[in-house]
Structures are given as structure tokens and as C-alpha cells.
């Protein structure tokens, strides 16, 4: 049966490989190449060596953006995964104990559908919604609930909380997906394990930390990588929601936003490409680091 294998392999893979080589590999090569030019986006291209990278090194906005990226990278996955784990746990085994089986809280099937809704809404829509939620006057959902006379919270205009306000929206949007992801993982954990632990006297908290989390470790790891990627690429939401795009005064600027603005607004395609290279390296470093750090023997079931 060995013969005749390669025609299939080549036939099956020629299109995807061609697509990747053209649109991803070649595109990245070009980004690296443009990073060494002072190209504006139009007209002649001339090479300037490492000048863009020197500019970047001395650009305080670049360092702030990297800091913001790292902040999001830390906060977004931790909050999202924690919330998603807890609620997936509640949906699957957190409820009462009936007829010898553990079960989720009341209405968990309905919840499972509802949780996913924010994930379905495009960021364009999410931004519209939260523009309303964060609105600084009394028509805002949160500021409207504050007792009258108190200072309104300027969620997006106060540099101290603007970034975390946007991260909160990201958490709101992504948590449903991970609830479903973790639910699926928990579904494959045999209920007998929970029963055995419960008989041994484990309460919910113990069950959660001693059974659920270790058995889901691989899935958590995947979630962490996905969320990390989302954290590096939180361009869309920052672009739409932040005041003055990245403001106030650079308080919400992230790398991807800098790239976009330099490329398509400031006509600095060369500099944008240099930023792109650094974003690429940071992302890869993150992925490699995550896979290394979280590598831990999965518990066999």
C-alpha cells in the first residue's frame, strides 16, 4: 500500500502550501525587508540599515506600547481563564448532587448558549455596545447607576483606567468561548472521579483545584496561548474604543495600533515594518516561552 502515496500528498498539499508561501511567508519576508528602508508607502524605496530600529529604541511611545502589550498579556489570560474555569465548573459539576451523579447549576444548558453570545458579536458591535456602557454622562450604563452628585468615572478618558477598561471588554467578549472550551474538557472527565473524591470528603473548592484543574491542564495551556495571541493583537478594539486612538496621551497605545497608524496614516511604512518585526519576535518568544514553562506531564486518565 506504500506506492501511490506521494501523488495524494502532493495533490492535497500543493494549494495550501502555495497559499502560505505567497501570503504569509513571502509577506513576512517583505516585512523584514521593508523594515530596513525608509519607505513612505509610495514612491522610491531606499535602504537605511538599522535606522528604523534605532528610532524605535529611542521612541518612548514604543516602550510604553510594549509595556501595555505585556500588561494585557498578563491580565487578559489570567482573568479570562480564571472566570471561565470557575463558571465551566459551575455549569458542569458545581450544582447539587442528585441521584448519585454530580450536575451543573440550574439552567446550565441555557447558560451555555448565552455565554457564547458575546463571542459571536463582532468587535465592531462590541465597541458600539461598550461605548454606551462606559459613557461618562448619566446616559452611560455604569455612570447612570452611580448615586447622583458623585464624580463620574471617565472609563476611557482617564489614563489610569483606560487600558483596563478596554481589557475588561476583551474579557467580557472572550470568556464565553473559554467556558465552552473548558466545559468540553470537563465533559470528558469521568464523573466517577468526582464521586470518588466527594466520598473521600472533598468539597467544591478541593474538587476544583485537585481534580478539575490538573485534568484540564492541557486545555488551559491551549487557552493561554490563544489568549496571549489575542493580547498581542488587541488592535481592533483599542483602535475603535480608545479616545484619540491610543489615548489619552498614549495611555492605551499598543504595538499593533502603532503599526497600523504608522503604515496607513503617517506614511511611515518602513518604520511600521520595523515595529512589525519586533511584534513578530515578541509573539514568537511568548509562544515558545509558554509552551516551555507550562510543559508539565498531563495527568493520564
Amino acid at each position, binding site marked *: 500500500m506504500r506506492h501511490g502515496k506521494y501523488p495524494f500528498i502532493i495533490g492535497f498539499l500543493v494549494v495550501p502550501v502555495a497559499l502560505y508561501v505567497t501570503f*504569509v511567508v513571502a509577506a513576512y519576508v517583505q516585512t523584514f525587508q521593508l523594515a530596513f528602508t525608509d519607505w513612505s*508607502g509610495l514612491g522610491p524605496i531606499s535602504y537605511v540599515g538599522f535606522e528604523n530600529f534605532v528610532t524605535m529604541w529611542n521612541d518612548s511611545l514604543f516602550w510604553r506600547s510594549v509595556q501595555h502589550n505585556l500588561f494585557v498579556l498578563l491580565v487578559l489570560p489570567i482573568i479570562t481563564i480564571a472566570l471561565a474555569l470557575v463558571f465551566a465548573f459551575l455549569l458542569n459539576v458545581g450544582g447539587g448532587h442528585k441521584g448519585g451523579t454530580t450536575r451543573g*447549576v440550574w439552567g446550565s444548558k441555557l447558560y451555555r448558549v448565552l455565554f457564547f453570545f*458575546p463571542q459571536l458579536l463582532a468587535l465592531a458591535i462590541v465597541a*458600539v455596545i461598550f461605548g454606551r456602557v462606559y459613557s461618562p454622562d448619566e446616559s452611560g450604563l455604569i455612570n447612570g447607576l452611580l448615586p447622583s452628585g458623585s464624580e463620574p468615572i471617565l472609563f476611557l478618558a482617564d489614563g489610569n483606567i483606560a487600558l483596563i477598561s478596554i481589557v475588561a471588554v476583551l474579557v467580557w467578549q472572550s470568556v464565553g468561548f473559554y467556558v465552552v472550551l473548558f466545559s468540553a474538557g470537563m465533559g470528558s472527565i469521568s464523573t466517577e472521579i468526582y464521586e470518588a473524591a466527594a466520598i473521600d470528603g472533598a468539597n467544591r473548592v478541593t474538587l476544583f483545584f485537585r481534580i478539575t484543574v490538573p485534568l484540564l491542564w492541557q486545555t488551559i495551556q491551549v487557552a493561554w496561548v490563544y489568549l496571549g495571541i489575542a493580547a498581542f493583537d488587541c488592535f481592533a478594539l483599542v483602535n*475603535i474604543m480608545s479616545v484619540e486612538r491610543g489615548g489619552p496621551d498614549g495611555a492605551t497605545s499598543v504595538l*499593533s495600533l502603532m503599526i497600523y497608524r504608522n503604515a496607513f496614516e503617517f506614511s511611515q511604512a518602513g518604520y511600521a515594518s520595523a515595529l512589525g518585526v519586533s511584534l513578530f519576535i515578541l*509573539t514568537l518568544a511568548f509562544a515558545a516561552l509558554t509552551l516551555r514553562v507550562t510543559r508539565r506531564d498531563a495527568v493520564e486518565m
Partner: protein
Amino acid sequence: MAAVAPVVPIRKRRRRPIDSDTVTVGRSRAGTLFANLAAIGFIVVMAFPVYWVLNTAFKPSNEILRFEPTFIPNSPTFDNFKSAFNAPFFQQDLLNSVIITLGAVAGAIVVGFLAALAIARFQFYGRKAIILVVLGVQMVPLVALLIPLYLMMQGFGRTKELPGVIIVYIVLILPYTVWTLRGFISGIPRELDEAALIDGCTRAQVFWRIILPLTGPGLVATSVYGFIQAWNEFIIINTFNDQAQQNLMAWLLQNQTQRGTFWGPLMAGSILTAIPVVIFFLIIQRNIATGLTAGAVKG
């Protein structure tokens, strides 16, 4: 911990016959109540903004701007939906969205299924490299690729046209498609292939008659996920194309910046653009968890 004596008689009556021969340890009644309350609180936070969109979309404009918020529209109306639907470029962009999304999903499924077959069923030189590239592409931030992609499309003369965007979207959806379908195909026992080969099937027939039908649920789950991604994308299309060749998300974005305070039509427009995605999701919501884990968990 012994079961706490039930306070409410009606629950006692319901529980007793079931519980009589099972051990109920580790789960306090108060804990159950707390768990349920926590879940309800969480879902309220999650669902409230969505509810608020619905609420606003059905309100007439004078009610939206009223100082005191109302939780149910006093005189519900479809006016906002009408004005969103008749707004400039809405119908054109709706058509564009449908064409682009269907094109991208169909392309990604065909290409992705074949690639997944090759990766799941054959051992060959370079297989690991292909898997790495497929996974790596998912990690790379899209924005860093916008400039070269734009140049490329310009070079092919494909900016301001739908096919260019469709191809880029195929590339965008493909990693997830390949990875998930690979998981599904790996789940089909090889013995089935071998049995069919012994019965005289050619290899192509094995793929067509055995593996393709058995991957059915996987194909559905992946295409819906691809649909959501392609339908909701707006950065690429917004950068590449003019208003006449954009999709609904870009339309929404532009109307948000242009007509900031027209909340009613904007919310109605958001709902209209979200409807297809929600419908597809409800159709496959049972399978989506399977699809996710097939792609994510199996290493």
C-alpha cells in the same frame, strides 16, 4: 459532612426517594445555593449589554434620548431596522458580506479538508514542518502582515475587489480548519480504511466514501467557525477596499464614526449583522464543543 436537614419541605419530598441509597458528601446545600447565585450574577453581567442593544433597537428615537432609561420600549417600533436597512451601502455591503463569507468558507473547507487528510493519514518528509507553519500562522498578529498583503494585492491588481479579500480570508481561516479537521480525521479508526482497501476500494474511494462522510459533523463545525471569522472580519477589508466593496462590519464601523449619536439605527444595524452568525451558532451549538476540543486538545 452530613446532609443538612432540608428547610423547605417540598424539596425534602422530592429528594428523599432518589437520595436514599446514595452518599451525599462534600456538597452542602448552602454551597449549591451560592453556586447558583454566582452563576446567575455572572450571566446577568454577560447578557446585560446584549439585552441593552435589543432594548435600544426597538425604541423610537425620542425614547432613546430620554434622560431616564427604560428597561422595556414603551412603544416598540421597527423604524430603526428600516432606516438601517435603507441606509446608504447597507444592502450592497450585505451582498458583499454574503459573497465573501461563502467564498472564503467554501474555499477553506475544500483546501483544508484535503490538507488535513494528508497530515492525518500519511507520514511524509516535511509533515512536522507543515504542522508547525499551520500553527505558527495562527499566532502571528495580522496587523504586521497588512502592509505586504496590501502591496501584493496592488501588484495583482486586486485591491478594491472582492476576490482578493476572499483569498486573504481563506488564508486566515485555513489554520483553524486544517487543525480541527485533522483532529476529526485522526478520530476515525484506520481499520476502516484498511477494510475498505481490502474490499477493493482505491485510495481515492476510501477518502471519498469513508472519511468524508464520517467527517461530516467536523465539516459543519469548522465551516461555522470559519463563517463567524470571515463574517466578523473588518480590518483587512476596511484597509483594502472602498465603501462599495466592503462588508457589513466595515459598514457598521463607518456609521459608528460618522453618525455617532444615531443609536437606534446603529443598534438595529448591529442586530441585523449579527443575526446570521447567531442562527448558525444555534444550529450547531451542540457540536461546537466537540469541534473545539477536536482541534485544541489532541496534541
